[in-house]
């Protein structure tokens, strides 16, 4: 269990250019609190003459809140809209917000409300009505956090006679991902000139809003990944000079179970803009490793 409070965090704040011509100032303006719990459990589940199973479970939960966001020289209120993927035609659209009482990585965007009678995407306006011409910022709504509710690591060790097997699962639960990559490829009207997603082909070319960054492109980022699996066989002492021979095979990134539709749910989670998938990361590879251990 821990609680960590950070004060006077530095950030580059936008300011009125008529007062400060460079239009930004660097200032100590933010406090943040991190509160959480971490637990680990080791179990020697089975131990017989030929077979053993030990398992190790790690669990952690963190609650992050921005507790203060003001500065005497920073008059933009207690919030900052940020993270601009700059998709074509989306200049000024932002995905996240720094806001007192909300965590870092809180999404703040248009709230998608299906299509209207003529097939154009509509959104919930500030006053709760539906609109096809939402205003950036004004008609934005909170749309969940990029930070996971809890993280899990689960390690297993099996031995059977001379075989040994290690399996390590990792899981992240309860976080949201903004799939801006998907939004940027969601332009049925550009099908003649550029690649679009297969499922964007069902959109009407007249839906001039289809690609707009909105809650439509926020997805559950939970996943379980079989991160590492190693199977080995130990021949033991072989002959006079060799004390031990062990062969093994390791596979990294065996599979991932997720509902996330992008390339990989494990997007950038550090920094000040977590959980945004915007053509900005290289997918994880799957590696196979064969090994031979010889001890003389």
């Amino acid at each position, binding site marked *: 269990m821990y609680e960590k409070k950070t004060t006077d965090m530095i950030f580059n704040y*936008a300011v009125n250019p*008529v*007062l*400060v011509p460079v239009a930004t100032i660097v200032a100590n303006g933010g406090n943040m609190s991190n509160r959480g719990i971490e637990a680990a459990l080791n179990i020697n589940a089975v131990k017989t003459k030929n077979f053993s199973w030990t398992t190790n479970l790690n669990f952690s939960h963190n609650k992050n809140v921005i507790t203060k966001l003001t500065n005497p020289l920073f008059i*933009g209120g207690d919030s900052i809209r940020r993270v601009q993927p700059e998709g074509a*035609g989306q200049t*000024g659209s932002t995905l996240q917000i720094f806001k007192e009482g909300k965590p870092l990585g809180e999404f703040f965007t248009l709230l998608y409300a299906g299509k209207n009678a003529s097939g154009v995407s509509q959104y919930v306006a500030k006053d709760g009505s539906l609109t096809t011409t939402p205003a950036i910022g004004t008609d934005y709504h909170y749309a969940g956090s990029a930070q996971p509710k809890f993280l899990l690591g689960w390690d297993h060790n099996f031995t059977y006679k001379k075989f040994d097997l290690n399996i390590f699962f990792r899981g992240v639960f309860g976080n949201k991902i903004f799939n801006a990559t998907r939004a940027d490829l969601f332009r049925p*009207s550009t099908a003649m000139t550029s690649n679009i997603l297969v499922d964007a082909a069902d959109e009407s070319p007249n839906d001039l809003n289809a690609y707009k960054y909105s809650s439509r492109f926020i997805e559950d980022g939970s996943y379980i990944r079989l991160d590492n699996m190693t199977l080995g066989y130990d021949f033991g002492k072989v002959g006079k000079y060799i004390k031990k021979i062990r062969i093994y095979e390791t596979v990294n990134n065996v599979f991932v179970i997720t509902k996330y539709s992008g390339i990989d749910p494990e997007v950038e989670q550090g920094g000040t803009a977590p959980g945004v998938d915007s053509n900005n990361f290289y997918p994880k590879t799957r590696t196979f490793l064969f090994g031979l251990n010889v001890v003389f």
Partner: protein
Amino acid sequence: MKKILNYLGLPILMLGLFCACEDLDVPITTQLTPDVFPQNSAQYIQTAGPVYSAFRGEYSFAWWFTQTLSTDESIMPARGGNWYDNQNYRMMHYHDWTPDNGWVSGLWDWSSKVIGTSNQAISILDAAMPEGTEKSTMISELKTMRAICYYMKMDSYGNVPLDTVYGDFTSHAKSSRTEVFNFIEKELKKAIPNLSAASGITTYGRPNKQTANALLAKLYLNAEVYTGTQRYNDCIAACDAVISSGLYAIEPRASYLQMFYPTNGPAMKEFIFAVPYDPAAVTVGFNGQMYHARYDVPRSERAKFGIPFTPSAPRSTLPEFYAYFDDVNDIRNKQWLTGFQFMNDGVTKVMVTTTKKGYDQFYTGSDGGAAYTYQVNLTPDIVLRQNPTLFDCGNDEIAWNMGYRNIKFYPDATSTSRNQNNDVPFLRYSDVILMKAEAILRGGNATLGHTAISLVNMVRSNRSTSAAWTSVTLEDLYKERSREFTHEAWHRNDMIRFGKFEGSWGFKTNSDTYRRTFPIPTNALVLNPALTQNDGY
């Protein structure tokens, strides 16, 4: 002995520490501080420089787009999704811009930045410079630059906040348009005695006395729009100050077009205040460029104009505006590219080889991939063939040839980038002459022996070989201004003053009168909580 050293050592060490603590006030040698900068004339100029480079910043972008694409002078439709850009250009045409429009906020941010930079430079120079003519001239120049920006901002947004003191970080609410009008008038009048009386190379790019007088004339001519009170006699007096200075002359017909060429500059006898562009100058970051050829020259005419890039050319005029060019003897017709296109020899046709489908995206024959060669023919009408909602003409040769193109700021074959060397006038002598004519037509008293018709013919005789006019109406004058100041970003101002801004042209039918001012941009409302949105938005 060792013990003695121990006893002595500690106090000596501590003494050393105390001395070290006191000696931390090291003189700064690697930064410019008010103690070392600015200290001489060259450094004063360096201090004032950022105001001019900031002013150049969006002068040929946000200022041009908001003042021109919102009128019948120019339209910038999409070509297969290209140039749709979050409806930025579409909204300018349809008059349905929102507080989030990129050009509405671009103009606000830019004018705010120039005002903020002016306040800062004025504050530094006021403290650093010794009293005298050099100081009073320089500070008056900067205050005139600030007044120009407040004029642009007041003209575009109506009521705007007055921030005039650097270091005052409080948020100011909007002042009424009349208060801002009075501020600009007062600032210009105070500046005039101190501004340079010369014109040409010594003051080029900076405001002189006549810059302030010409801007006062502009302010008074539009006074009824801004404050509800006519000031036509004041307008005439300000024009007369410019005319009586004897510094300027109307460019003859033979060199009218050259006035806007890449080679133009301080020698131009009509330029009262112009923004100099120079692609060869070393730039630090983005400090203002001029890209007209990029927007206007057809893609097929890169070779003809010898420009170092393929222009994307989405921009053209509308038939309603081109109709004002109805005098065959008028040199100003030559600023347009229309109809069949020829190389500079006037004989060689501009040919394009494409495919049948590339020429016409709606071609349905089975041989759409077959080669097709044709002579470029610019057509007057804009047709939203691909998608009217998306403001889209299509992405084929037919679409790219739509609309007559303006090459007044003639493409620059000497530049190695999209940036052009043509200087862009803000206030020109022929504008002063036509402003005076208009003020007389609107009821002001004729002076200096001029009449409205004599003034208009002063300009016209240097533009057309047709017979002089025998009479002039306000409508005639409006059309004359349209011909004379095409692409100089005055058309929105003219349309509003002549009550034509609510008309219909192109695809625009919106006649909301509150759109005579733009909305306060969303981002400005965030950064200044004391602001309120303009009426109607």
